[in-house]
């Protein structure tokens, strides 16, 4: 599997960068920032919807990383490590809606705005799909939405999602399974998809 080889190379570069940063290399630190800051911001914004909280969390996280660089451990998957950290920061700020933990259906945290992105997609044949999907996603609990976002937007594995969200592997798989079950009611995902999740879950 070439895929695996490629991932390994990236990981090696990544951990080399991480090591340089831990030894106090400010350039490596800036490199790490450039590489991960935006996806961290996107994730933070997705779960908090409050931009200034995201900015504060990112600042706090990276300032703290720099200050404590010498005592940081080597990291296997840096991306997941940072996602977990930013999530922790947001929760610790105490301003992430409490609702979040109760797995409540739906949220007022999601905006109904039809973005430019969606507007363009609208002209394409998949418009209907997106619309249906978009309303379906809003039906998901915030926890489910987060897992879906991590999986299908950020490309994390179930393992990493469990790590980031601080749940067991099995729970992460269940969360994703339930999410797809809900999505299916609004959007005709092939039945097989669920079949697979049931089997795998």
């Amino acid at each position: 599997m070439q895929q695996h080889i490629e991932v390994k190379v990236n990981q090696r570069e990544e951990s080399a960068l991480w090591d340089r940063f831990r030894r106090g290399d400010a350039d490596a630190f800036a490199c790490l920032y450039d590489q991960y800051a935006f996806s961290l911001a996107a994730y933070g914004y997705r779960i908090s919807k409050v931009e200034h909280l995201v900015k504060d969390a990112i600042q706090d996280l990276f300032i703290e990383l720099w200050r404590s660089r010498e005592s940081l451990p080597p990291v296997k998957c840096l991306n997941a490590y940072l996602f977990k950290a930013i999530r922790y920061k947001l929760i610790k700020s105490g301003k992430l809606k409490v609702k979040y933990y109760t797995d409540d259906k739906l949220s007022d945290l999601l905006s109904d705005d039809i973005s430019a992105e969606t507007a363009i997609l609208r002209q394409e044949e998949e418009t209907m799909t997106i619309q249906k999907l978009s309303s379906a996603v809003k039906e998901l609990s915030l926890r489910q939405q987060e897992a879906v976002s991590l999986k299908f937007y950020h490309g994390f594995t179930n393992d990493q999602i469990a790590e980031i969200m601080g749940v067991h592997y099995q729970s992460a798989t269940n969360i994703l399974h339930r999410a797809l079950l809900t999505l299916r009611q609004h959007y005709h995902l092939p039945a097989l998809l669920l079949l697979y999740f049931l089997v795998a879950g």
Partner: protein
Amino acid sequence: MQNSETETAALLQNDDFIRWAISPDEQSNAYWENWQQQDPVREEMLQNAKKIVLSVYHNERALIDGLDKDITRKAWEEISRHVETRTAKRFLLPGISGWMKYAVAASVIAIAGMIFFRSQRKPVKASIALNAGDIMANASDSEEIQFSNSAELHRLINLPDGSRIVLSKNSSVHYARLFNRNKREVYLTGDAFFDVAKDAKRPFYVYSGNVVTKVLGTSFRIISDDQLGKVTVSVKTGKVKVFRQSDAQHQKDQYLLIRNEQLVFLDKETKPVKASIQDGSVPASEIPASLSFSFDEASLQDILGALTKTYHIDIVFDKAKNEKCRVTVSLDGKSLYDKLDLLCMVTGATYHTEGGKIYMDGKGCN
């Protein structure tokens, strides 16, 4: 088709597949191209699975559309203030030009570094320990210094780069004490007149409310009212660029002001109004003539004491070792660092910055 459906579902569980669908590259393209060619049913399967992944992906992307794309740059401005810029060794090497200058400078720095490392490591640590209260300063060179003026009519502040600020009553400024980063940055609340020392390589920024004034070397006045968001920038000499922090990327929202021009931001949102002002009517504060730094047979302690007093930076050195040193020198370099360079040239000493302080390593005199 049961088999094919199961395989589609399997694809949706395949992390490599998902990664390829959302961010393909040459290698993964080749892999999946090869994969689908191995069996005719795979092509449709792949397309279906990809469609599902991408629709979730695009939906997710639309959900973060409202996020300010500039957020990471803004956050970095804050973060970079906390990242140490360790060595600020600069040497003045008159009379040597071109690449020689750099070669000499490089070797001087290398040697100075070694000497410093060998001989001065312990005393430096010891002097830090003496100022144990100053733990923050020890942590990085990014220590901020703040001046507030609540009593005097005007207060003169000498910045280490040779720039000067006349701070009006009920106003305050803060900046990184050592002032030795790539950008010279000052944060203003209230009213101040700036006389900025020329340094083309290090632009000078004044942040007041959400308005940024960028200059290379000039004099101007800023009056800001944080509550109303009103900011007035008036230029006395030279030229400055003014923009809102959020518009740093947009050329069209940046305003170039020249001598005797004024830009008024009435509040935090609306477009500013540009106006010209009568010659000589820029409310420039009186700036006293440059301070004299001429010393005749002075002790190192007196000289460094004068620098410390002017620029509000602690300079640590070994008093006992340098007790007998007498220096005659005229430190008329523009900035604190120019003055230190000159002083080092004369005395054969070296200096470096660490933890918001300057450490001077003299050879001592007999």
